[in-house]
């Protein structure tokens, strides 16, 4: 039997911090506290370990090793203490999946209406996977997809189903 289109695995050790603020005014402070440059619209910045993603004109998501979340939360809250801002630990409310392999894009193309093929290398796209909201960015060898924790089983089922061996999207 042929191999699955991609290897699907759940990532359990991610921390996530939601930041809402006036990015124009507070961007520098956020960048410094997060340890990453401020991403442009629809992009992420990363140092290989942490990712700072642009979620909306006034929202960022810092994704980092879970062990660093508490400290980063404190640093960001401190950096934004004089700003009108909202900084929250949202590590527990999400499920994250790694989609790795040559045909990882095919798996996502079966589930998401977004044009992921033309997403920039450092892009972040919020869309839906079938009936559930999700966010997607690239990592070496594939993609990361995040969604809500309550639908983790649903997302896993979708991804595994879409990765069915032999179901690649190439013309036949």
């Amino acid at each position: 039997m042929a191999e699955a289109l991609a290897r699907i695995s759940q990532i359990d050790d991610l921390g996530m911090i939601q930041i809402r603020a006036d990015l124009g005014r507070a961007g520098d402070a956020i960048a410094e506290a997060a340890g990453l440059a401020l991403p442009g619209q629809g992009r992420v910045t990363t140092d290989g370990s942490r990712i700072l993603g642009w979620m909306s004109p006034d929202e960022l998501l810092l994704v980092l090793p879970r062990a660093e979340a508490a400290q980063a939360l404190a640093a960001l809250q401190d950096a934004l203490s004089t700003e009108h801002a909202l900084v929250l630990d949202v590590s527990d409310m999400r499920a994250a999946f790694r989609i790795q392999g040559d045909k990882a894009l095919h798996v996502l193309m079966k589930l998401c209406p977004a044009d992921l093929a033309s997403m920039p290398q450092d892009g972040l796209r919020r869309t839906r996977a079938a009936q559930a909201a999700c966010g997607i960015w690239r990592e070496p060898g594939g993609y990361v997809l995040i969604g809500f924790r309550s639908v983790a089983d649903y997302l896993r089922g979708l991804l595994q189903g879409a990765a069915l061996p032999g179901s690649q999207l190439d013309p036949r």
Partner: protein
Amino acid sequence: MLTLTCPCCGVAAEETELHAGGEAHLKRFGPGSSDAEFEGYLFARKNPRGVHFERWRHAYGCGKWFLAARCTATLQVFATYSAQTPYPPAEVVAAIRAARPDWQPDWTETPTTPAESPNA
């Protein structure tokens, strides 16, 4: 199925990623308004055949509301623009006029530039 470009995040989103919110630029009437004013605010909608302004939320996306100027008959999209404006801004009016020279705005106030928003 429509595709609209969200002006808040730049994404060309398809209709299934969006949530429709009805007519745009309604003026809210609250306590102290007359029955007629309140009725108009609550119930009267233009429902035109042709140029129309409507609210959309990029629900499976950045979560922001934005406005679209669209032809209800041909589905041509003249512009999408910030929700933080009481009237379509001048460039939106110009884009509509470029495609529909005979169309006239039906509001009398001067279009204002989008107000400064702390969220913008």
